[in-house]
């Protein structure tokens, strides 16, 4: 299939390319950027007038809910949500049921995802069996099955000895470990510690839950020398520790969720369960620091933290409601909103959802990732074409995700995805209502 995307503004953060021109695609690859190859005759032409043509988004945190939680989300619904949001590659977490702690379910997941021909799926394997924090998984076998790194999802490893061994073992093979920084005991609360939690009578999660976990992790990294990706940082103090540790030479990368980038605990308002999230929303000074950190590169990537939750699990008192919100379809718009509010160049804004997360992904699976998160000739054509001048109003019922909960309900957001191509094939567009 030969596709020509014409009249758009091509923005490729990986190469710093930002200029109008055509993008030519043939046999799944980009064959011309800015100019057409000799004799290129497209079978399909996409008129991207007024649109920006960017690499398909790379989302480092999305739950697809398979296997085991199909009532919350299915591969088909969540991957359709991904391409509708311009996301062409995503990392899924191992907290499925059963957890992704054996090669079989990982292979099955990848096989099923490939057959759906939507976004690419890169699973994280469980770091410990059943995410119990006791026994290490067969990491080599899981890596061979397609896991790009190892994670505990929201489950902390409470036994420091186990965490030490897990980091040591992963470092042996240079597998990246992706961890949330949250102390298991201090992290049992419902909302971020602070005036709002006190006022609403919700048990608190202090910032120390994050900083203590980071201190522990950094000390262990000094012993083991492995690479760790910190998932969904939530506090200003945590960010400060991370900067210091990185300055000391530790191999750390980190991401922040769209929720923590834009919201604070005040958005819980009168017990709005769509704002029940992990990590919990913190205060304005934390949000401001995270926004600054993403802009100055201390935080590498912006993630959707997509977690579809079914209505029954949210129609409960706040503390009993299941944490999580749908985000795949909001990621691009919320990146743009942040970039506009900070007055950033599109290249810098879009890097946080394309080239930067792709770079982190590539550390775990270099061979499978050629071309992800960038628009370059002779590499795969994962492309998102969107209209930056059109805004849309978030209406949860209209999300393609099976999860209809988002704390951004009613927000008017910039940027509407028009076409999404994965591997040179059109996967979302006007013909995909």
């Amino acid at each position: 299939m030969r596709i020509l995307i014409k009249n758009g503004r091509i923005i490729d953060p990986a190469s710093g390319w930002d200029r109008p021109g055509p993008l030519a695609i043939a046999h799944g690859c980009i064959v011309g950027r800015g100019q057409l190859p000799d004799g290129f005759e497209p079978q399909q032409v996409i008129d991207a007038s007024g649109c920006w043509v960017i690499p398909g988004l790379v989302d480092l945190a999305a739950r697809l809910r398979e296997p085991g939680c199909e009532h919350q989300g299915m591969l088909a619904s969540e991957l359709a949500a991904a391409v509708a949001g311009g996301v062409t590659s995503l990392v899924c977490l191992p907290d499925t049921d059963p957890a992704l702690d054996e090669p079989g379910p990982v292979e099955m997941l990848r096989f099923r995802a490939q057959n759906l021909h939507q976004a690419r799926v890169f699973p994280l394997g469980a770091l410990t069996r059943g995410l119990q924090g006791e026994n290490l998984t067969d990491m080599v076998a899981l890596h061979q099955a397609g896991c790009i790194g190892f994670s505990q999802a929201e489950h902390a490893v409470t036994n420091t000895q186990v965490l030490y061994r897990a980091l040591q073992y992963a470092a042996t093979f240079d597998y990246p470990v992706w961890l949330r920084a949250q102390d298991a005991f201090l992290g049992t609360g419902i909302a971020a510690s602070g005036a709002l939690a006190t006022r609403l009578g919700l048990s608190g999660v202090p910032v120390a839950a994050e900083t203590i976990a980071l201190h522990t992790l950094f000390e262990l990294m000094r012993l083991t020398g492995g690479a760790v990706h910190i998932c969904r940082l939530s506090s200003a103090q945590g960010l400060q520790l991370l900067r210091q540790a990185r300055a000391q030479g530790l191999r750390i990368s980190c991401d922040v969720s769209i929720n923590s980038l834009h919201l604070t605990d005040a958005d819980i308002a009168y017990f709005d369960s769509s704002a029940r999230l992990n990590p919990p929303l913190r205060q304005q000074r934390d949000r401001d620091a995270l926004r600054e950190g993403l802009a100055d590169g201390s935080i590498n990537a912006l993630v959707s933290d997509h977690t579809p939750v079914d209505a029954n699990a949210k129609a409960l008192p706040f503390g009993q409601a299941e944490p999580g919100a749908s985000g795949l379809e909001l990621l691009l718009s919320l990146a743009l909103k942040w970039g506009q509010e900070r007055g950033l160049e599109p290249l810098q804004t879009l890097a946080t959802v394309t080239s930067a997360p792709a770079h982190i992904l590539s550390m775990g699976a270099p061979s499978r990732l050629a071309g992800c998160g960038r628009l370059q000739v002779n590499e795969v054509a994962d492309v998102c074409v969107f209209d930056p001048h059109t805004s849309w109003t978030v209406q949860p019922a209209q999300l393609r995700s099976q999860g209809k909960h988002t704390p951004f309900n009613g927000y008017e957001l910039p940027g509407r995805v028009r076409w999404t191509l994965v591997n040179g094939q059109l996967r979302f567009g006007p013909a995909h209502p």
Partner: protein
Amino acid sequence: MLAKHNPQLNRHGELIHLLSVEGLSRDILTHILDTATRFVSVSDRDIKKVPLLRGKTLFNLFFENSTRTRTTFEIAATRLSADVINLDIARSSASKGESLLDTIANLSAMAADLFVVRHSESGAPHLIARHVAPHVHVINAGDGRHAHPTQGLLDAYTIRHYKKNFSDLTVAIVGDVLHSRVARSDIHALTTLGCAEVRVVGPRTLVPADIAPLGVRVFHDLKQGLTDCDVVIMLRLQNERMNGALLPSTSEFFKSYGLTPERLLWAKPDAIVMHPGPINRGVEIDSAVVDGAQSVILPQVGFGIAVRMAVMGIVAGNDA
């Protein structure tokens, strides 16, 4: 966006549910207290009834055990001529796995007009209020650590009854503030009504670090906290809280924070002593104080009926 609006007021700013004292204006609080004053006399009549809620059905929905609060709500509703249904939720639907909102939907189908709800989770009455039909009213009888608004109002009523004016009063709330919905509702009621100073007193494990923004002064020393107080509100120390690392023992608590006749001398000579009940004699408060001349613990219970009658009458008279 629904959850962003104060759900207890209608578009005209009138009270349609009572979920929390927070966010209610001084006018609304004063209106409730004034209405309660008129209802106090109903209890002294031969026929202790007025027909305000005749034909209305009230469901007492207590997902958490309570005798005193449930009974006073029942008495209040009966005196307003409402039909009262008490449900032992803990032993019925919830234990069979029915969800909170399904329980509410089923009871609504039985033509309920008012729900009085107690629940162990903060915010549960808000959830219910968002899902009931427009003509149905919800009164929070205590949710988690969040709010116990009728208790806050009856405490304010009691203080006004004995002290007349809030503007020159110092009130100390002593004990387990962290887990106390009563403390939160008292704080909101008293600060809204213009109390000169509201204090909270307790060990650092039981006083939230972020409570000062609610408009209170924090004390960890009982003597300092009680000095010059007009009102002392003692909070119940819940036995179920004693299994963690919050306190070494109840006797250790009493050593530092238990209210004895000697310690009560630190407050003003005419200070009144209140307690939301049930009291633990010898744990947070000495028997001699409970039964002493400054104690108004039993009158509080009586005022509670009038305040709950006032709240029911007011919310039932306003449409969503």
